[in-house]
């Protein structure tokens, strides 16, 4: 990242010498990786639906795999957006569908049931990652509803609101015409 930052910056801007702590935490990074994985998997499912369905021993499900691919792409985009929590939960829902379909493929009469079982195990593993990322993102970005602060003592008016109102009345604050020259002449040299 340091190389990219320095490569794209104007030559007269400061150079990044070493990079420090980021606002992205581990669950954000995991969510980002899962988002890209989702899009990659979705494209693969759409492009290679026929070979995937045959590999899994469910040739009749070719169109279903394509539909799942579209769903993966949509979930991936959502996961890569600021609404990543919604994206991750949509991925978990999608994982449940995948697991349901793959479990029907792991049956005695499917000659490719070994492949289906392996796919089932992989989806289960990814589901665990999705759950971990969703919980992490939810926890780290949550606003504690019980953590309300009372700022009713912060008026900003050292003499109080009523004094500020009285002052406005006494001073007969004239509205400043927004398009007229500045109310106060600019000096730039004050104090």
């Amino acid at each position, binding site marked *: *990242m340091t190389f*990219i*930052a*320095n490569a*794209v*910056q*104007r030559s007269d*801007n*400061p*150079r*990044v*010498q070493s*990079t*420090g*702590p*980021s*606002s*992205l935490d581990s669950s*954000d990074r995991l969510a980002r990786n899962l988002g890209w994985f989702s899009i990659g998997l979705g494209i693969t499912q759409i492009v290679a639906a026929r070979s995937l369905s045959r590999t899994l021993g469910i040739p009749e499900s070719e169109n279903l795999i394509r539909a799942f691919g579209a769903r993966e792409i949509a979930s991936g*985009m*959502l996961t890569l957006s*600021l*609404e990543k929590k919604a994206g991750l939960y949509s991925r978990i829902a999608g994982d449940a569908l995948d697991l349901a379909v793959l479990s029907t493929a792991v049956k005695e009469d499917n000659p490719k049931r070994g492949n289906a079982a392996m796919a089932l195990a992989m989806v289960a593993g990814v589901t665990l990652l999705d759950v971990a990322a969703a919980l992490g993102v939810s926890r*780290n970005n*949550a*606003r*504690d509803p019980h*953590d*309300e*602060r*009372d*700022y*009713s*003592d*912060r*008026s*900003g*008016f*050292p*003499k109080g*609101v009523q004094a*500020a*109102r009285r*002052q*406005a*009345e006494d001073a*007969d*604050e004239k*509205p*400043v*015409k*927004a398009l007229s*020259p*500045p*109310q*106060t002449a*600019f000096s*730039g040299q*004050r*104090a």
Partner: protein
Amino acid sequence: MKALVWHGKEDIRCDTVSDPEIEDARDAIIKVSSCAICGSDLHLFHNYIPAMEPGDIVGHEMMGEVVEVGSGAKGALKKGDRIVVPFTIFCGECDQCKRGNFSVCERSNRNKAMADKVFGHTTAGLFGYTHLTGGYPGGQAEYMRVPFADKTHIKVPDTLSDEQVLFLGDIFPTGWQAAVNCEIEPTDTVAIWGCGPVGQMAIRSAVLLGAKQVVAIDCIPERLSMAEAGGAITINFETESVVERLNDLTSGKGPDKCIDAVGLESHVSMGQPDTILDRAKQMVMMESDRPHVLREMIYVCRPAGIISIAGVYGGLVDKIPMGPAMNKSLTFRMGQTHVNRWTDDLLRRIEEGQIDPSFVITHTAKLEDGPEMYKVFRNKQDGCIKVVLKP
């Protein structure tokens, strides 16, 4: 030096970067003593503002001590001067600067050609913002170069603390300009959408400018409590209808003046279907900004009223009800703040004790904690309304 650097969406890092140097005779270098995270920094954090580049130093609310002065700025500044730096960079000499329109300075944007293409005409250079506005390194850093420093500064006296004067560089004059643009009359009801830092300043400004009634709209309890402390009647849009309540408060006439202190990231709520549609369109790049507040202001504003926009918008908005706006004879005023147009007056008000802008600070942290504080501020955790960082 240490600085907060933008590396991509939601990725701000506290990096070690090379120190700034004097590049032009009118430059100065300041040692930053205090800087703040602005609501509009969150638009960068969320990557809603185009033309950011990895390696950009962010931050446009800063102040500090002058440590180096270019030969062309020596008449106006000297080493040791304590200055607040306005977020708008201005030359003080072009036609717009002579009119006091500093935020549309014709000479300070070093990427003028890009701005000309995108905006039609260039606007001023801004610190720590998009390359559309010059791509100048910002002030969430230990040191910062100030271009056109002989003009781009506000000298502040040692008798006032950093916390009292820091916001002269942005949010205080931004709230003030939003209120001034309303041409407030003593009989006016001024409604302000958004009780973040700019909204809080707009509330106090409307009070100081003599509004009869100030109404503040938000959904975060601590922001509403701070708004109420400043003299506003509050509306929690999650629990009550904004339109109905505003009409109730104005005998059915609607607020005379409306201020948008929200901008392009208005709250998405199940109770407001247009906000959900905006969010979906924003996600697939069919719309860059979410203008729910604009729609609501146009609908509820009293005919012949004024709509003043202080919240930042970045690009394109959809479904703006121009029919009602035109037929109701509404006046629209908006723009980045002409900071130095207002600061002499506002500094006087602080010195006289009319207002103390430090009321808005809820969190003070070290610069190194900046990346984490971006998230705390964005998520409104821990009662956070305004973060000040100390390099």
